């Protein structure tokens, strides 16, 4: 009998050269992470669904591979490392020496409509820095991300920076009835819808930042100034990467509960501070991203500052010249 070698949609086997290429890259990154003082955590591929119930959006719930175990428990395949790590650490934080520097690697599985470039199983390598407050943690994590991504990806790395909730005040003032829809239009850079609703947002759509930081409101203006300084500092250290601030890119990543209705198509929306996406080569799918996610721990009952990132290693390798 002939056995078919076909695989289900969205998964791939790496054979020979492609396997070697990924393991080589992975090895180099792991050496780098260890040297930077990060310790590995190995997480299970199966977990209960229930602890994540309050964290899931309609979109992220739809991506889960869920099933009922023989004992009747509802389980899911791992779709994201960060919440799993947060849930496992939250009850133990008081007994752990802070700050914690952790990294993980492995596959995540998410149901995606069949589309080119959208695998259902993909490999992630990421790092989390827990318990170091303020901008120091954001600087360290962004630096580490840039070091890793430029080490493997070669040239043409673009990092787009923003922060969660940056446009909330403008969005709510412009369209109190449906700010989430306006946020989606800003994220898609739809000029006429944005112009009609709020001229100040138009500058954000065109240039990524408002004409004056104060347009965002006093608190967000301060954060924007801080981010501009951090961007300049990182750009000087990583001249081979293009670092831009584009608040429109993260318009849907809000902090205001009034905007959570219909929020974020598939966006993992636990970020509540600095947030970033990285692109490499021409493709429009990010090769990595991350940010601050204190509120994820808060939702799990722990108060701790947390910043981290994940790299999609296969996409990054694909972009290598």
């Amino acid at each position: 009998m002939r056995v078919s070698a076909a695989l289900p949609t969205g998964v791939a086997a790496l054979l020979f050269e492609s396997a070697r290429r990924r393991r080589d890259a992975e090895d180099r990154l792991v050496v780098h992470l260890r040297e930077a003082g990060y310790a590995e955590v190995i997480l299970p591929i199966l977990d209960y669904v229930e602890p994540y119930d309050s964290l899931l959006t309609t979109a992220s719930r739809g991506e889960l591979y869920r099933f009922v175990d023989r004992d009747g428990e509802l389980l899911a395949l791992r779709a994201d490392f960060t919440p799993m790590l947060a849930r496992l650490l939250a009850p133990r934080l008081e007994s752990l020496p802070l700050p914690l520097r952790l990294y993980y690697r492995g596959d995540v599985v998410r149901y995606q409509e069949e589309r080119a470039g959208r695998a259902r199983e993909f490999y992630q390598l990421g790092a989390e820095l827990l318990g170091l407050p303020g901008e120091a943690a954001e600087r360290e994590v962004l630096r580490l991300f840039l070091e890793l991504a430029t080490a493997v990806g070669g040239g043409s790395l673009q990092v787009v920076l923003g922060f969660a909730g940056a446009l909330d005040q403008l969005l709510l003032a412009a369209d109190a009835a449906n700010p989430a829809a306006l946020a989606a239009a800003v994220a898609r850079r739809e000029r006429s819808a944005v112009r009609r609703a709020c001229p100040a947002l138009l500058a954000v759509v065109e240039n990524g930042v408002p004409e004056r930081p104060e347009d965002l409101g006093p608190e967000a203006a301060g954060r924007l100034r801080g981010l501009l300084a951090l961007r300049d500092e990182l750009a000087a250290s990583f001249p081979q990467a293009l670092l831009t601030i584009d608040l429109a890119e993260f318009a849907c990543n809000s902090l205001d509960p009034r905007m959570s209705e219909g929020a974020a198509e598939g966006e993992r929306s636990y970020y509540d501070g600095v947030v970033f996406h990285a692109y490499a080569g021409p493709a429009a799918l990010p090769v990595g991203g991350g940010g601050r996610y204190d509120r994820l721990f808060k939702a799990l009952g722990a108060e701790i500052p947390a910043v981290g990132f994940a790299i999609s290693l296969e996409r990054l390798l694909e972009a290598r010249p």
Partner: protein
Amino acid sequence: MIRLALPKGRNLEAALAAFRAAGIPLDGVDANGRSLLWRLPDLGVEILSLKDWDLPLYVGHGIADCGIVGSDVLEEVDGDLLVPVRLLAGRSRLSLIGLDPALPAPGTQVRLATKYPQTARRLVAGRTWGAEILKLSGSIELAAVLRLAELALDIVQTGRTLAENHLVEIETVAEVAPCLVVNRASYQRHRALLNDWIGRLEAAEVVS
């Protein structure tokens, strides 16, 4: 150098005219001809000629930085693209059509023929009637005329084809416009040029 993808077929003229009006003459481009790629070094532009349905994929993968494609196609094959402006020319409607001028009665089950199965599924999900979606690749009106399906979801431009075949436009589902779409990564890289183009298209009043 920026790479612009233009669609073959009905949206091509609208796209070329809009760029011409904006002072960006894409001279010599005949996207309905046999050539696949043109270089316009003076403008710093390369033009790709693609079928509508393939265009979002090329832009999504960054093979083209930007392109012009109908919102009907975009709704169907969402590739997470940026959509800064929509052209005023070349607009049409996505409509439910059929021989019977009334929508199906609540609780009934019909067949619906379309080139847009995803859009159709989303549409039917919000209705009181149900439909089996039949995906066809062309001559959608014929499916309704010959009663392969009670309903068809298709583009209506002038309505002439409908009238000739005794079909009725029962309900307009969406306005359809050729859209400028941009790859997310390209938008960061070519922001100045794209903003310049968009500004000129807006000044020429050929987009909204």
